[in-house]
């Protein structure tokens, strides 16, 4: 259940560019990524907002769809951050992720 401290990732879709510009000017949501154009001409972007702000974004010509609980997702990712220092040992260096391959 979202709390006052929850941040949601929502997908905001505006019916046209003028509606979107007005929304961005008025509401100033925390925008993630960039604006995309849909096949029907509408425009979408992701915003990171509280549940209350998400409700405020919805208006004529604008729909708001919740994608995920960004706070919970972020907390899960924080558990995937390394602890200590894996490169502290004298012979420990980053290896890179590409395969090192001999020329054919």
């Amino acid at each position: 259940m979202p709390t006052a401290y929850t941040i949601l990732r929502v997908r905001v879709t505006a019916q046209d560019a003028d509606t979107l510009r007005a929304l961005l000017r008025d509401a100033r949501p925390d925008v993630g990524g960039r604006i995309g154009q849909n096949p029907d001409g509408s425009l979408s972007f992701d915003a990171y907002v509280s549940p209350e702000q998400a409700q405020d974004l919805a208006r004529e010509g604008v729909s708001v769809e919740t994608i995920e609980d960004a706070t919970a997702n972020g907390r899960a990712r924080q558990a995937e951050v390394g602890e200590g220092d894996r490169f502290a040992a004298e012979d420990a260096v980053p290896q890179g992720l590409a395969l090192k391959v001999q020329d054919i």
Partner: protein
Amino acid sequence: MPYLNINEVESGVISLAAAFPKAELVQLPEPTFEGRTCHALRIGTHRLEPKPAVVLIGGAHAREWGSSEILVNLAADLLHAHTGGTGLAYGGTSFTSAQVRTIMEELDVVVFPLVNPDGRNYSQTVDPMWRRNRNPARSGGNPAAIGVDLNRNYDHLFDYRTAFHPLAPVRVSDDPADPDQVYQGPEPFSEVETRNVRWLLDRFTRTHWFVDVHSYTQKMLYVWGDDQNQSVDPAKNFRNPLFDGKRGLKDGLLYAEFVDEGDADDSAVLAERFCEALKGVRGTEYTPEPAFDLYPTCGTSDDYAYARHILSDQEEEKILAFTIEWGTAFHPPWAEMKKIVLDVDAGLVQFCLTAAA
């Protein structure tokens, strides 16, 4: 291997410099507000004269964690492959040992993987959605007003209220508590982190290419960000006060930012090659395009880097500048982030090869 914490980004860079003679450790001059010293790496064979340089920076926006991993792993790939005399394979995109050697011998590749360690640490340990640095100078004691958006703090059209059309939805703010987290700071280069990047460009005087790694939307962007590009009317440029109050409307005919046609073509080619090599890894499509969107930006690193040669009137100082927007979320699970690192690093190796050609 999970995401790197901030100590590991630094120790990874330092350990690479210690292990490989062809990696030079570069200490940035200014510590952050929380007292952290940052380092970059210059990678490449040594020459008496400076070589053309590609400067790659990441981690300016705190929550875009994977940018640092992309750059640390790119540095490691190039150094291990060059030392071992091997090529590199990123999924379906491969590079020969000769291509790796070309990059190392013809270029200085300057990698600065973590511009904003204070912000990353806060994002990784407290608020995962934090974007800015942690400078409290203008917060007035309000925790929500701490920090500056570093990618709005460069000196390019900083006075946005004068430069842009009143109806242009410029994605910047002069309010420290703006909920969009795009507070620009009190003046250009008010922040140590952006001054460190400027110092890096000043130090590597033969920098011809600049890439700022961000997230997200799967795009490879090139200048300009304040308005649409045009190569017809040089008078329409960011320095011309006649066009103050007219910039930033996508559909308007009042203004479009002048860019030399050759630079626009070269930038497009570099961005396209990046995207092609990236797609070869596992089929992911990134889009190469100018940075201007429905909402304009100002004070960004790429526009600043390209504009430097215009302000100095020194053609030899020209820097073609880019912004990568990797992935489709700020914090993908590490298993997915590893695949994104492979994608983007393949694109960056090809970017360097194209630059060196």
